[in-house]
């Protein structure tokens, strides 16, 4: 149903360790652009790129955002593993993101 645009990493068969994310953005708005870049960094740095992210542009596909109650953008949702996590903002506060995702900020120094 949900057709995503700007998909960078198509969904693959998920390994148990693979995290699945859905990232909602609003076109090329500064916040959205920053959010994409920030999350890319976090993925690479803290998740070993072992994540599958579906990127949805609410301007192009507004109804897609309905089920996830996306009314502020940008928004990052961790679909799996559970519990589901919702993080809004341009993700510039890395510590908060990691905390929400259950990745201790102590990892910061280690990895």
């Amino acid at each position, binding site marked *: 149903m949900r057709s995503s645009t700007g998909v960078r990493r198509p969904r693959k068969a998920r390994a148990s360790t693979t995290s699945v994310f859905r990232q*909602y953005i*609003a*076109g090329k*708005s500064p*916040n*959205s652009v*920053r*959010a994409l870049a*920030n999350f890319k960094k976090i993925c690479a740095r803290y998740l070993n790129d072992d994540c599958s992210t579906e990127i949805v542009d*609410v*301007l192009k596909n*507004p*109804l897609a*955002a*309905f089920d996830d*109650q*996306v*009314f*502020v*953008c*940008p*928004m990052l949702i961790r679909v799996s593993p559970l519990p589901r*996590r*919702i*993080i*809004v*903002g*341009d*993700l*510039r*506060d*890395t510590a*908060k*993101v990691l*905390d*929400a995702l259950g990745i201790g900020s102590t990892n910061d120094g280690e990895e």
Partner: protein
Amino acid sequence: MGGKRNPAHRAGLQKAPTAISGFDEISGGGIPASRTTLLLGGPGSGKTIFALQTLVNAARTYNEPSIFVAFEEKSAHLIANAASFDWELDSLIAPDEGGTPLLTIVDTRLSPDIVVSGDYDLSGILALLDTYVRQTGARRIVFDGIDVLLTLLDNPNTERREIYRLRDWLLEKGLTAILTAKTDDSGRQFPSQYSFMQFMVDCMVVLTHTFSDRVSLRRMTIVKYRGSDVGSSEVPFAICSSGIEVSSPGKVEMNYQVSQVRISTGIDRLNAMLGGGFYRGSATLLSGAPGTGKTTLAASFCHAACQRQERTLYISFDESWAEIIRNLNTIHVHLQPFVASGLLRMYSARTEARSSDEHQIRIEELIAEHNPACLVIDPLSAIIKVGGVGAALSVARYLLRLAKTKGITLIFTSLLESTETMIEATPLEISTLADTWIHLTYLVRAGERNWGLTIVKSRGTAHSRQVRELLISDQGVTLADVYTAGGEVLMGTARWERERADSLEKEKIRHETERKRRELEAFEAEIKEKIDTLAREVETRRSELNTLLEESELREKQWRQTTEDITSLRGGGAEYAGGGKPKRTLKRKKGQKGGVR
């Protein structure tokens, strides 16, 4: 009507009617169309109801689709709460034919465990709403609980930026919008961090909900209305089965039709005292202590109105109307047939059950439903018991004005309880608004308690200033003369007593004079009788004397004849005869004299 009633057209500002009873009147036509209205109020002040009702009314009245964006409440909760009103939200949200919904509720409640990291904006919801607006053709939109959203934005700059983004979006779409935001309980203090919103919106309405004497008071104030001359006084409103009902204070200018027609009070003598009855469309105050016959008088008026086939509304407080009808039956005032035919609407309410505002709004509702020509509120002073004197007075004032504007002939009763000065003052205040004031009192006379009726004032009427006795019997209600009170307003038993003593004294003197006159008349008659009797005696005696005189003359004649005869028989002797004659003449003269007398 005309240009005056809707200044919006003059100013080129379009208004979108809310169809909320009373609001469109106080706002001069509704909220500004294609612009934004900010609705502020404390928790439970009725913001959500007002906003949702505006949309429901737009759908029902104008078939206008709209969107409700709920930031605070879940849409399921919202729908459940709205079920207590007669809005039938379901049929608007999901039309039977599967057509376009007239109302779309967008549930945008933020999950409490949402994590914020960095800057974000409202583009998500606006993109979604864009789609809804396109799909449904919505003309109106509500953002309920914008403060929740602002709290999340967490940063004054972001707040401002996003609110302006929202405003720009609304302007671009040309939507008529209502934003609701919570304030503190009083509703007066708008959180300073959101003060910029006041400059952003075209109209700002504040709702408050306070308690006075343990009775809830709801008030609405239009604090700001760009391009519109709107009175900014607080107006009461209530939340009823149809939603919010705002009490419209009506036009400031008093211009209503004035009738010259007199209508019966239901009591012939009272009509006569008032120069024909009450003026149609006038307001009459019936005051008096408990049990002085206020209800009876009011009901007689109702009865007369119904007999003229006029629609009548009888509102009683703290007495069930069934009881009133039963009690009146005993004095031959039968209201039941009129209730049955629908001509008379009787409504009873417990005063404590509602605030004075709610009573006022309920009365307004009843007037709108029944459309009466005559209205009785018995007693209006009952409203004082709830919500305090100040509030009750404004309610009384309002109802009087409403009746005037609608040309309804109003009778309202008021208890006078001298022990409570505050309450006593109220009818006096009300009385300045009433056209006619009839005061009922007890009147103790000859060891029995009677009802006295005084017309204290009656505008435009050369009314009788005498006190009458109100006779309530199984034959109905009539008035009887009491006594002249010198045109003064009579108050209290003492006054009555004195008046009564004066009256008795006068009566005594009158009786005394009458008696004396009769005595004299009788004496005169007696004297006359005596004179008549004496005169008759005189007459009798005179006639007796005359008879005697005639007899003696006759006898003299006979004697003289005899003497002459003898003389002639003896032949001559004239000197002899002459000598004897004078002797006898003298004797006769003496006798004649006594006889005449």
